[in-house]
């Protein structure tokens, strides 16, 4: 897969597989093309060449909403909630999407209740106050959870998490890790683009390393830590 921006190769001949039910970590220094890769998969930018397939369906060329409709969703590095909607309504939006209407349809019951369930699962207090606050009033930790919750509302089978841990404190990350693991247990395939390598390596089954738009390694976490080429690229970072 290739993508250039004005002569700079943001993603250069990167090819990889994600297997059903695994957690794949993607690491690399700033500007190594990780977010571009996410954008390519989810249809936000068009690939110069190459293609993405999900269980035989070609994703390349589809718009982000169609890709999301197929159950492949992402979180944004900087959370992008609907600021003037409450946390609950933030989830009601995807709960009314055509994917949900098509798959579960009317059997879902009251959307607000379903939204509260998801929020609770993801670590929101289930009281009369917190879920009804406007999204603009939440702290970074909550917003990251909200991002994740909004993805879950679409009942996805692949979630791509774009630096989910960035901007969070160590304890917040510690609280987040079991959440991610639970999602994996529920059968969701997860790709994590991360800077927080140590935390990532606790949960990822495999890790891919990128530098200057190229894939420079792909292996289990232990092997990656030992690899020379990765050490060079990451000198002093970890």
């Amino acid at each position, binding site marked *: 897969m290739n993508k250039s921006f004005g002569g700079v190769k943001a993603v250069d001949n990167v090819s990889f597989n994600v297997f059903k039910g695994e957690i794949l970590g993607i690491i690399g220094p700033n500007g190594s093309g990780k977010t571009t890769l996410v954008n390519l998969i989810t249809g936000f930018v068009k690939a110069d060449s190459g293609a993405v397939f999900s269980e035989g369906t070609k994703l390349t060329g589809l718009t982000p*909403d169609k890709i999301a409709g197929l159950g492949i969703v992402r979180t944004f590095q900087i959370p992008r909630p609907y600021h003037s909607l409450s946390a609950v309504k933030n989830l009601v*939006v995807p709960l009314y999407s055509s994917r949900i209407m098509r798959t579960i349809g009317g059997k879902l019951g009251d959307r607000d209740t379903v939204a509260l369930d998801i929020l609770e699962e993801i670590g929101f207090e289930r009281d009369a106050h917190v879920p009804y606050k406007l999204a603009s009033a939440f702290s970074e930790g909550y917003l990251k959870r909200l991002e994740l919750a909004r993805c879950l509302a679409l009942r996805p089978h692949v979630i791509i998490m774009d630096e989910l841990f960035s901007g969070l404190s160590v304890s917040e990350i510690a609280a987040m890790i079991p959440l991610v693991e639970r999602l994996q247990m529920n059968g969701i395939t997860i790709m994590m683009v991360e800077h927080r390598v140590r935390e990532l390596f606790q949960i990822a089954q495999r890790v891919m390393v990128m530098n200057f738009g190229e894939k420079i390694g792909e292996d289990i976490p232990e092997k990656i830590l030992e690899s020379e080429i990765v050490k060079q690229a990451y000198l002093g970072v970890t």
Partner: protein
Amino acid sequence: MNIFIFGLVNSIILALIASGFALVYGVSRLANFAHGALYILVGFATWLFLNRLGINYIVSILLSIIIVSVIGAGIYRLFLIRVKGMPASEIIASLALGIAIMELFRWRGFISEAYMLPPFVKGSVSIAGVMIDWQRLIIIGVGLAMMCSLWLFTHYTKVGLSLRAIAQDKHASMMSGIEPDRTAVISLAIGSALAGVAAVVILPLGNITVETGYMVLTNAIAVCIIGGLGSWAGVFAGAFLLGFAEILTAAFIGPQWQMVVVLLFIILTLILKPSGLLGKQKELEERV
């Protein structure tokens, strides 16, 4: 009292005219320059149903509004969808369509003073010593009712919620599985229907001319620029500011200065707060 009542009427007229344009822009970031054409289209269509086909007034109105929302949706589905994401092309395409619609009416001979719609209720009443006709009171009523129902619609319905979501963050809402093309079609249908509602309540005040279409478009844009594109409260703030400014100018300076004052407000807004009174500056785009 005069100034208050007629200022209010004038402001609500502007708000009605601008709301459809603002809704489409707010939801789809699409400046629908065919707005004025759709407005007179409803006027002429209602007139035709009423006078040529002899259909009941209320039915004629409903029919025309339905037709115009279908046309509005069609404009997106058939034309604007091909140039989406290119604001200049969107403006050119919609303006071209608008001019085509308006000039089609001129060409077909819709150019007499006889094209007028009757008021809903005849006669006038005296309010605090000011004689005012029922139609203007109805405009105030419809204007307020429309604001309320739009608020209820966007806050309490499924479609309304998705419109708000996409208006707030297009990328995020795509990730929520909302299809931008579908919401754009819906927003154009609703926006056109709003233009239609405005047309049927306002046009009985005067007559339907092709030029009205151009004027409506200009006014809608003026209100939106001053109030802030894509902001609901801004539309009403802009409409009331302009509405009262026009009436006050007419009362204390002279009616020939009305347009100057409007332009002055636009220029001042663009200098002091380019995003409009209540508009938000665009947030930083996410790093790619």
